[in-house]
C-alpha cells in the first residue's frame, strides 16, 4: 500500500504544472468566460494541447493518444484543475472518439479521429429524448434503411452545444422487436444535413448551452453507422461507465473548494471573516472531509483500472458522491456571495453589479443542479449499485 509518486511521475508533474503556468494565461481565461468568444477560444486552447500531444489523455498511442499510465492521467487532471483550466469538450475526445477507435472500422477511424484530435470538428451527443431520460433505452428516434442510407426521424434533447456542433453521435432505433436495449444503432450524423433543426433551451442559469435537435427525414449514409446494426447499446454502454467516472469532478471540486475558502477569508461582516465563523467552518469541513475521502475512492478505482479492470459499478459511487459534493461546493460559494449571489449576468456573461463572483456563483449553482441528473440521474445510479453490487433485485 503506497500512494507516493515515483521520481518519473514527479518530473512529469513539474512539466505539466509549468505548461499550464506558461500557457493558460489570464487573457485566455477571460476569453473563455465570455460567451461571445468561448467557442473559438476553447478550440484554440484544445489545439494548443493537441500540438503538445496532450489532448487525448485516455486514448491509446496508436490512435494519437498520450498512452499515459493512470497515475499520469491523475496527475494531469489534478494539475489542470489546480491551474483552474477547463477540461476539453468531452463529446469528441472523451465520448465518441473512444467508441470510434474501439468499435469503428478502419475507414471511420481515418475519417473521424483526426478531426476530433485537432478539434476541427465539434461534436455533440444525441442520447436523451423528450420521452427517454434516465430510461435511455426506451428511445424512439427512428432510423429506417432506404438503400445505402438511413432515414432518421425524431428528436434529441438536452444536447449541449448543439448550436456549435459539426457532428452529432446518436442512438437511434432500428428495430422494435425484442428487449428495448436491442434494436438500437449508433450513428454519426453531419449537423449540416438537411432536415436537422436545432432549438435552443434556456436553462435556469439564464444561459443557452442546451438544445433540442429535431430530425425530419434526415438521410445518413450507412457508412456512418458504428459497428453492427441493432448493437449500438453495447457500444454506448461501454462509454457510460467512463462518463460517470469522469463526471465525478474530484480535482475540480478540490480547486473550487479551495477558492471558496479563499473568498471566505475576504468576505464577512462585523469586522470578521466568514472563514473564522465556527458554524461556517463546520459546513466547509463537512464537505472537505468527504471530498478527501472521495479523492481516494477515485484513486482506488484508478488503481483497480490500471490492474486491468474496467470501471464497474463503483463508478456509480463516484458519480453520486462527486456530484453531491460539486453541488455542495456551489452552494457554499453562493452562501459566501450573500445577496450578490442573486446578481444577473450581462450579455457576455459578466457581472452587472461589479461584484467579483456573485453572478458566477449563481450561474454555477443553478446550472450545477444538472450534475445529479445528467449521466444517468443519481437515483438511477443507486439502482445500478443496488442491483450490481448489493445483489438486491
Amino acid at each position, binding site marked *: 500500500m503506497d*500512494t507516493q509518486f515515483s521520481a518519473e511521475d514527479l518530473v512529469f508533474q513539474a512539466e505539466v504544472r509549468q505548461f499550464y503556468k506558461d500557457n493558460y494565461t489570464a487573457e485566455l481565461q477571460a476569453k473563455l468566460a465570455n460567451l461571445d468568444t468561448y467557442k473559438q477560444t476553447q478550440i484554440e486552447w484544445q489545439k494548443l494541447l493537441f500540438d503538445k500531444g496532450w489532448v487525448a489523455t485516455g486514448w491509446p498511442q496508436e490512435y494519437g493518444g498520450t498512452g499515459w499510465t493512470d497515475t499520469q492521467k491523475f496527475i494531469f487532471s489534478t494539475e489542470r484543475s489546480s491551474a483552474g483550466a477547463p477540461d476539453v469538450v468531452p463529446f469528441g475526445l472523451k465520448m465518441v472518439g473512444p467508441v470510434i477507435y474501439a468499435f469503428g472500422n478502419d475507414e471511420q477511424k481515418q475519417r473521424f479521429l483526426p478531426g476530433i484530435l485537432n478539434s476541427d470538428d465539434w461534436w455533440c451527443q444525441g442520447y436523451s429524448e423528450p420521452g427517454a431520460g434516465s430510461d435511455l433505452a426506451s428511445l424512439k428516434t427512428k432510423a429506417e434503411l432506404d438503400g445505402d442510407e438511413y432515414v432518421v426521424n425524431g428528436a434529441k434533447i438536452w444536447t449541449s452545444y448543439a448550436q456549435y456542433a459539426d457532428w452529432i453521435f446518436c442512438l437511434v432505433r432500428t428495430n422494435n422487436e425484442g428487449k428495448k436495449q436491442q434494436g438500437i444503432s449508433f450513428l454519426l450524423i453531419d449537423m449540416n444535413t438537411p432536415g436537422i433543426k436545432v432549438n435552443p433551451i434556456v436553462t435556469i442559469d439564464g444561459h443557452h448551452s442546451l438544445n433540442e435537435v429535431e430530425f425530419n427525414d434526415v438521410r445518413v449514409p450507412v457508412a456512418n453507422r458504428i459497428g453492427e446494426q441493432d448493437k449500438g447499446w453495447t457500444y454506448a454502454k461501454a462509454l457510460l461507465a467512463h462518463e460517470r467516472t469522469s463526471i465525478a469532478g474530484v480535482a475540480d471540486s478540490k480547486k473550487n473548494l479551495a477558492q471558496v475558502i479563499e473568498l471566505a477569508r475576504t468576505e464577512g461582516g462585523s469586522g470578521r471573516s466568514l472563514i473564522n465563523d465556527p458554524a461556517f467552518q463546520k459546513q466547509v469541513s463537512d464537505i472537505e472531509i468527504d471530498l478527501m475521502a472521495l479523492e481516494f475512492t477515485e484513486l482506488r478505482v484508478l488503481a483497480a483500472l490500471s490492474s486491468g479492470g474496467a470501471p464497474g459499478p463503483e463508478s456509480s*459511487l463516484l458519480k453520486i458522491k462527486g456530484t453531491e459534493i460539486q453541488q455542495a461546493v456551489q452552494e457554499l460559494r453562493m452562501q459566501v456571495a450573500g445577496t450578490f449571489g442573486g446578481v444577473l449576468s450581462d450579455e457576455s456573461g459578466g457581472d452587472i453589479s461589479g461584484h467579483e463572483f456573485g453572478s458566477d456563483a449563481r450561474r454555477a449553482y443553478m446550472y450545477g443542479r444538472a450534475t445529479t441528473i445528467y449521466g444517468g440521474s443519481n437515483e438511477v445510479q443507486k439502482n445500478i449499485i443496488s442491483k450490481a453490487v448489493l445483489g438486491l433485485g
Partner: protein
Amino acid sequence: MNFDFSEEQNMLRDSVSRFVMDNYDFATRNEVVASELGYSASNWNTFAELGWLSVPFSESVGGFGGNAVDTMVVMEQMGKGLVAEPFVGTVLLFGGLIEKAGSADQREALLPDVIAGETQGAFAYLERQSRYDLADVTTRAESAGDGYTLTGSKALVFNGMAAQTLIVAARTSGEQYDSDGISLFLVDAAAGGVTRTGYRLMDGQLVANIEFDGVTVGADALLGAAGEALPAMQAVVDDVTLALCAEALGIMETLNATTVEYAKTRQQFGVAIGSFQALQHRMVDTFMAYEQTKSMLYRTVCSLEAEADDASRNLHALKVLVARYGKQVGDEAIQIHGGMGLTDELDVGHYVKRLMTINTLFGDGAFHQARFNELTYN
C-alpha cells in the same frame, strides 16, 4: 501507486479472519464477554502463538516489525468478529507506550512478555474531568527518596482489571492543563495504595476506575524523560485511533453485509423487503458510507507511513467520518432489521454499541472536526 496488501499482510489478514470465522461466533463471543475476565485467556494464548501480539513491535525485542498497515489489517478483521480480547489495551496502548517512550532496557525487559502473551497491561491516563484532553492530568507524582509517590484517580482504564502492570500518567510538575510536566510510570497493579473498581461499558468490555493513594515506585518505574511524556502519549493515541477506525470499518462492513442479507430473505407483503426501492437506496447509502470510510482510512494510513505533512489532518478527518458514517451504518442496520434490530439476541445491536464506543474513544466526531478546522482554516 497501489492499494494492495503485501503477501505477509494478506497472510496476517487471513489468519485473523480464519480465527474469527472458526472460533468466534456470536454465541461464543457473548460467553467470552460475560466471563469474569471479560476475555478468554486461552484465546489470548492463541493470539500469542499466531504472532499477532508481536505485530507492532520492533524486531530487536522479538516483534514482527509491522507498520500501521499491519495493525490496520489485524484490527479490521477483529472488528468483524467483535473480538473482546484486550489487543488495544495491552498490545497497542501499554506495549505501544513502552516501545515509544521506554528505554532499551525497559523494552527488552517488558515487551517479550507482552509478545508471549504473559503480560496484561493497561494505560491509566483519563480522569473524571479530562474528557478528550490528554494534558488534563491532576494525578501527581512527588519525588520521594530515589523514587516517586503517586496520588490521584484514574477512570475508564481499558483492561484495567486484568492488567498486572499499569502505565500511569501523572504530573511531576506544572498545572492541570499544561503540556509539560506529565510523566509516565510503570506501576504494579497489586502494589499497596492501588484500588481498582471494575465495571462494564455498553460494548461489554471491562474497564476500571483506579485510585492511587500514595503509591510508591522506584526511579526505574519512570518511562521516558520526566515531564516530557505528552508527545509519546499523543503518538501512541494516534496509532490507537487509527487502529480503532480500522476496527470500526470491519464492523461497518459486517453490519452492511448482515443487513443486505436480511433484506434478501425477510418477506413482507409477499416479497423480500430488499425489493423495495426505498430500502435499496438506504442500503446503497450505507454502502457508499463504508467505501468513503475505507478510502479515508487508506488515505490516512498511507500518509502516516510516508510521514506526510497532512497525516494528522487526515487522522482527524478519518475519525470524523467514522463517527458520521458509523452512525449512519448502525442506524440503518437497526432500522432495516425492524423489531429484530432492537433485540439483544441479534448481533446487530452489539456491533452498533461497539461502534458507538469507538466513536467516543480518544475524541468523538465533533472533537476531531474542531481540531481539523483549527488546522485547516485558522
